[in-house]
């Protein structure tokens, strides 16, 4: 225990002496947490629309007003031909082209139906799909109002066709605001970066300088050395997590609905798992560059598979399983459950089991793979 004290003292001295690392560990996550949720937003706004009206009727004017007033679209231009409208898509100024054929109003009133043409620039997938969806919703709405107007006028019958209308309620995030979804997620990702990279780089740095050989020639035991590296960065991680929670509350007004103690319990176990990954990487890598690349490889997988950017439910089966094998997935799920839904221990205990499993496996492997004698 005494020896561990000396190891910890040395590590903390070095951490607090290196101002760049210190800034990287504390200031960067906070700045990122303040900036990123504002930019990383899945909501689609400002869809650029080009409207080609061959009809010039009051009904077609009404439609364009409805679209423009929905708030999601920006009317870029109203050229007179489809060909010139397409040039807007070709140069990237427009995402959607809506073409209203001649005789639009006439056909609607007489025949009761009319086809219109929607062309979508599918390069920016999210924007075009969601933008197209919004536009269809707007048109559908317009259509329903139209039904009433035309049908009431033309048919004598007053019993309108039965229709199912759906009212959606967003539980746990009533206004479906992205920040409630994003901010806890980003907090987790930042913690992941710190946990995964810093230990790996720290130990490999000692390898590069040669001080690790000096340590290996001392009677320091493996567990002492590893704890000497784990504990300082675990503490740093917990401080970052705390700062993150404070930013979340002060800047975004998000206060965890569930138990804070439970949240800290998970953060504690999660950090041990992540630091274990860093340790494991450091036992394989000989240079900081190698460690960097390996850590980056895992981080990319973690980020893309953890359900932060894309929904896990829509992944193929193999990807779902892979996603379950990354610690980030479990932690992100839990943080969202506790922060937004107020879930208690009973609801998340399987996730705790997973994280404990990762912590044991990764640290076990790291200790097994760390050799004082080669």
């Amino acid at each position, binding site marked *: 225990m005494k020896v561990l004290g000396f190891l910890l003292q*040395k590590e903390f001295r070095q951490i607090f002496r290196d101002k760049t690392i210190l800034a990287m560990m504390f200031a960067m996550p906070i700045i990122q947490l303040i900036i990123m949720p504002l930019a990383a937003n899945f909501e689609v706004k400002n869809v650029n629309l080009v409207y080609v009206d061959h009809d010039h009727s009051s009904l077609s004017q009404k439609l364009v007003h409805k679209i423009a007033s929905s708030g999601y679209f920006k009317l870029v231009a109203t050229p007179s031909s489809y060909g010139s409208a397409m040039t807007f898509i070709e140069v990237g100024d427009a995402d959607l082209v809506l073409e209203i054929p001649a005789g639009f109003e006439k056909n609607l009133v007489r025949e009761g139906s009319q086809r219109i043409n929607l062309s979508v620039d599918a390069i920016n997938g999210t924007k075009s799909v969601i933008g197209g969806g919004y536009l269809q919703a707007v048109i559908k709405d317009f259509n329903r109002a139209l039904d009433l107007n035309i049908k009431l006028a033309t048919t004598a019958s007053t019993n309108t066709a039965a229709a199912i209308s759906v009212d959606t309620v967003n539980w746990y995030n009533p206004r479906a605001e992205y920040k409630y979804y994003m901010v806890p997620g980003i907090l987790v990702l930042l913690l992941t970066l710190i946990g995964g990279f810093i230990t790996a780089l720290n130990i490999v740095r000692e390898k590069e300088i040669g001080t690790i*050989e000096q340590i290996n020639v001392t*009677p320091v*035991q493996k567990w002492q050395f590893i704890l000497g590296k784990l504990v300082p960065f675990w503490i740093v991680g917990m401080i970052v997590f705390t700062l993150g929670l404070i930013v979340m509350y002060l800047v975004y007004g998000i206060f965890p609905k569930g138990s804070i103690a439970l949240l800290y319990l998970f953060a504690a176990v999660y950090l041990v798992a992540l630091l274990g990954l860093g340790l494991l990487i450091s036992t394989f890598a000989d240079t900081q560059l190698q460690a960097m690349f390996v850590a980056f490889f895992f981080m990319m997988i973690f980020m893309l598979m953890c359900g932060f950017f894309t929904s896990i439910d829509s992944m193929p089966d193999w990807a779902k399983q892979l996603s379950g094998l990354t610690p980030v997935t479990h932690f992100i799920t839990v943080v969202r459950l506790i922060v937004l839904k107020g879930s208690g221990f009973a609801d998340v205990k399987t996730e705790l089991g997973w994280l404990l499993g990762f912590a044991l496996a990764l640290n076990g492997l790291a200790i097994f793979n760390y050799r*004082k004698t*080669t």
Partner: protein
Amino acid sequence: MQKTMENKAIICRELTKEFGDFKAVDRISFEVNQGEIFGFLGANGAGKTTAMRILCGLSYPSSGEATVAGFDVYKQQEQIKKNIGYMSQKFSLYDNLTTLENIEFYGGVYGLSRPEIKERSAQLVHTLGLEKEVKKLVGDLPLGWKQKLAFSVAIFHRPKIVFLDEPTGGVDPITRRQFWDMIYEAAASGITVFVTTHYMDEAEYCHRISVMVDGRVEAIDSPANLKARFHTDSMDEVFYQLARGAKRTAD
């Protein structure tokens, strides 16, 4: 058996280390007496550092036997490590810690108590004349100081044996001389010194030396006897004659 080991600091018998087909250390045998200054010579790539790493418990031998301070290099590395000091070719104190912090850390790692560390480090700082530099980061010290400090740290826990791997590389002649004064002091206090060097004048300072060529120990004796055997009055000449037959290129 145990009796004869007691006054030998290091015993090597047919010690071998292979990396694939390459025999870095090829069946070397020698003994080092307690309190002796033993010079371990050889050209670059002759296998000195590999042999030294085995004796320090940093690397497993492929075959042969060796004991250091009476402990087996296969099974008792941790015991060995408690009884030795090691100064590697690479400077291995922490640049971003101060002189005192480095001393404190390594002392603590070897299990010294804080009062012991405090007392010994005050004494050490005084002997080295480093009073003004104690609060300076080690990275800012000149090389000569660094090497002297590294040596002092390596023997701070009063080991039975200290291993020095080219401790005076790149150091000016005056500092080298001071460094050897420190080695003599350490030996006088009963510490066995096992040192590699490329400077033949330093070889002369050793009680006995061995010369490694292509992984094998080709000669082992006192500097005076070796010079007599090779009919020359300089250690340089002894080294040339032995190392000339080397087939390995320097690493």
